[in-house]
């Protein structure tokens, strides 16, 4: 499956074949006969960054509406028919994308493609006020369950606000606000569908127990007749400079432990700068041997948990995060200072050889896991094709990461992680 050079994996050899239909739908095939199953995955190049002012949360609400039926499919039947064909079905919305996917026994491939094509072609034929209202309520329940009714549930929103200007495409969360969800109308759904849900704004990945020619032929059968639309413009957000002015916010709630969060603006994903920062964040806060864990959980025992990670985004900038939850009797300010010291130390000394080797080894295992399953492989193919234009990049990710050296990491940290380039959120316990 891969070539070996001097003990390290360089390039993986997953087969990737591409074909674009006349209407602009890009189809990617990666045959794999490990199981009699096939993964169908559509990435639409639309996410919460494409939302208009006053309509936050709309891309995600729209995703729910996509399951409410189309011209030839009754409400709820999309999932019901696929599950009855032995499928695992779902969809997600994020800043840069909305993806719809199902994995099922190969004999159900035609059904899956037919269902996806029917809603891409005829969603609006079945749309009713009742369906929209119902899914608006479901989404509000999702927001309550995942954000409003759990400890620290508003952290993402608070960090978004600290890190990006309010009118920036990444200045609001994907779940959006209750008020904006309430404001969404049928006209909004019509407009959003016509603008973004066109074949030339989508990537269809078909991975698993089907040969490439067969996959392309079936894609042509079900999607070939759909008309292309104008390619929707992407939000024009040029790369922002690193954060300045050290923005700071406080929150308080009935949480079990006080906590400190940092966030950073980082460069957009898709280049060595981002990859080098990704390794730096891994060294800082991923796993038991990371600097934060070693020092704050194991060493001073001031934290009950720590972490750091990047969130790669394509529209000019990405996010970086770090956090620590305080043990009893430790003030957030004390913890904050210890975190700052650790980050500054990494900045000044750079990672050790061992740290860099471990971070790369952990990435390699994570990436091999990701590609081992046909469903997650289909998803990363859609991701790399949509965001970077080239699905073949998945075969060279390990080589890309392997190529990053100490100097690369120190120079990007110097550019993006200087002490005055972070935002800080302090989460306090509300006195009960």
């Amino acid at each position: 499956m891969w070539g070996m050079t001097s003990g390290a994996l360089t390039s993986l050899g997953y087969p990737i074949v591409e074909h674009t239909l006349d209407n602009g739908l890009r189809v990617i095939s990666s045959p794999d006969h490990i199981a009699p199953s096939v993964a169908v995955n559509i990435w639409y190049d639309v996410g919460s960054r494409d939302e208009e002012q006053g309509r936050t949360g709309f891309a995600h609400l729209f995703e729910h509406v996509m399951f409410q039926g189309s011209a030839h499919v009754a409400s709820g039947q999309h999932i019901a028919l696929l599950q009855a064909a032995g499928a695992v079905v779902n969809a997600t919305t994020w800043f840069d994308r909305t993806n719809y996917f199902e994995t099922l026994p190969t004999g159900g491939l035609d059904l899956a493609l037919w269902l996806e094509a029917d809603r891409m072609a005829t969603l609006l034929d079945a749309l009713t006020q009742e369906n929209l209202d119902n899914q608006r309520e479901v989404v509000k329940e999702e927001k309550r369950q995942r954000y409003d009714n759990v400890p620290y549930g508003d952290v993402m929103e608070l960090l978004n606000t600290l890190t990006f200007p309010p009118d920036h495409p990444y200045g609001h969360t994907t779940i959006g606000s209750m008020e904006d969800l309430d404001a969404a109308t049928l006209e909004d759904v019509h407009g959003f569908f016509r603008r973004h849900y066109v074949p030339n704004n989508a990537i269809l990945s078909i991975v698993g127990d089907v040969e490439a020619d067969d996959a392309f032929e079936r894609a042509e059968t079900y999607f070939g007749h759909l008309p292309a639309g104008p390619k929707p413009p992407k939000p024009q957000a040029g790369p922002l400079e690193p954060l300045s002015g050290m923005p700071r916010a406080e929150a308080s709630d009935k949480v079990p432990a006080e906590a400190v969060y940092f966030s950073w603006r980082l460069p957009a994903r898709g280049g060595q700068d981002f990859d080098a920062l990704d390794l730096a964040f891994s060294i800082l806060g991923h796993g038991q041997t990371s600097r934060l864990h070693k020092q704050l959980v194991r060493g001073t025992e001031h934290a009950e948990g720590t972490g750091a990670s990047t969130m790669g985004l394509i529209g000019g900038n990405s996010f970086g995060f770090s956090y620590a939850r305080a043990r009893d009797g430790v003030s957030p300010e004390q913890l904050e200072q210890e975190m700052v010291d650790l980050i500054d130390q990494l900045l000044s000394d750079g990672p050790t050889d061992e740290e860099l080797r471990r971070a790369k080894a952990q990435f390699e295992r994570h990436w091999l896991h990701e590609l081992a399953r046909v469903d997650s492989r289909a998803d990363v193919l859609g991701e790399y094709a949509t965001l970077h234009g080239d699905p073949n990049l998945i075969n060279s990710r390990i080589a890309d990461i392997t190529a990053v050296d100490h100097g690369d990491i120190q120079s990007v940290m110097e550019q993006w992680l200087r002490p005055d380039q972070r935002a800080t959120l302090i989460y306090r316990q509300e006195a009960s």
Partner: protein
Amino acid sequence: MREFLPRPTIAPAVVWAFPAPQRARLSNDIELMLFDLPGQHVISAHLVLDVPLNAEPRDIEGVATICARTLDEGTLRHNGEEFAELLETEGAGFGVDLSLSGTQIILDVPASHLDRALELFAEAVTQPSLADRDVNRHVQLRLAEIEQAHANPAHAASIAFRAAVFEEVKRAARMNGGEPETVSQVTPDTVGAFHLDHFGPAGATLILAGDFADDPIAVAERSLGSWRNDDQQRVTIEDPTPGPQRTLLIDRPGAVQADVRFGSFGIDRLDPRWAAISIASYAMGGAFLSRLNAVLREEKGYTYGVRMNFGPLRTGGSFAVQGSFRTEVVADALEISRDLIKVGSAPFTSQEVNDAVAFFAGVSPLRYATAEGVADQAATQALAGLPDDYVDRSLALLRSVTPEAATEAYSSVVHPDELTLVVVGDAERLADPIRALGFTDLEVRAPAPDQTKP
């Protein structure tokens, strides 16, 4: 535009079978199960130890969890951080999983690093330092974790539900990781003693799955074959028994939603009704358009999702309708649920049964297509005392379930008027509406007290 194509039919599934393991024994009698899976370059290793949680002394429950979590904090050969650093340098991931029926120690590692990583893995299992400082820290972290769990309404509901559904004298009634009053009594000495008494090769199974670079039997023998523990004690697993029916409302003042668990004591995989109950529970609360979700989510918009879930233990188990609903509609959602789960006048249909069988049969090949999926299932089977061909047998049994059998099995287990109800939500707004539904035995409780602080 041309006429839209008619809905395609589904081509019949090809015959599929769960991979058969090759079995061997290490020289110390550890049972080895090997799954050679070409193309799976991350090896998944599970060491399943026959240490049921009822092996824990009652006053220090949680000791098994603290012991397992401290294994990779240093060994007699590689102290402290050095151990974890060595393991991570091999690209390995190390984890533990504790269930009532046994402990799993888990390793994921690229195939070319298996030999060295398994050697380190064996060190952690057989010669951990279990140093005072590390044990004490893990006790404190576990106490903090319990606080976090109680602060999360879904976790709080599950904790209260298991405490009610199982007889309180049984280990199953309490969290696998232990409750605050016993975790706080765990000391380095008790952890060391637990390791000495219960960790050993007798009754252990090592599962290895993936595309092996070297002979896996030799690799396993080198790492774990010489492990001895002459003092190892074997403990028989305890059978859980049901607790009395209860109706509990755990107050969460101001909560915008309430988390609900509505269920009772259940059955295990070896019960002759298991296949039928699996079908029934999928139709009632597993499928997207299950009876519960179709009404409460898709028709009413009361919830992001509601399920009916059966959780089998080695013997017995539990089941519950579970979901979270905005405070205003909780009583209505409960009333609807209570009606929907009665199947007397609405027995399961052949359509429901066929859809459930197709779903279970269809998802299996994918679920078990990776080393991780296969090893995980093999470990579940080892812990539950199930045969190697369990997956194939159970799919065959599912195919033989009739609508009548599904309805009958369901009715024999689910007695809608005798269920335990746990609600975690705003008591001021919920207590009266819930009582008005006829739950007159409602018991309102304050949020879990913070037992870990003076």
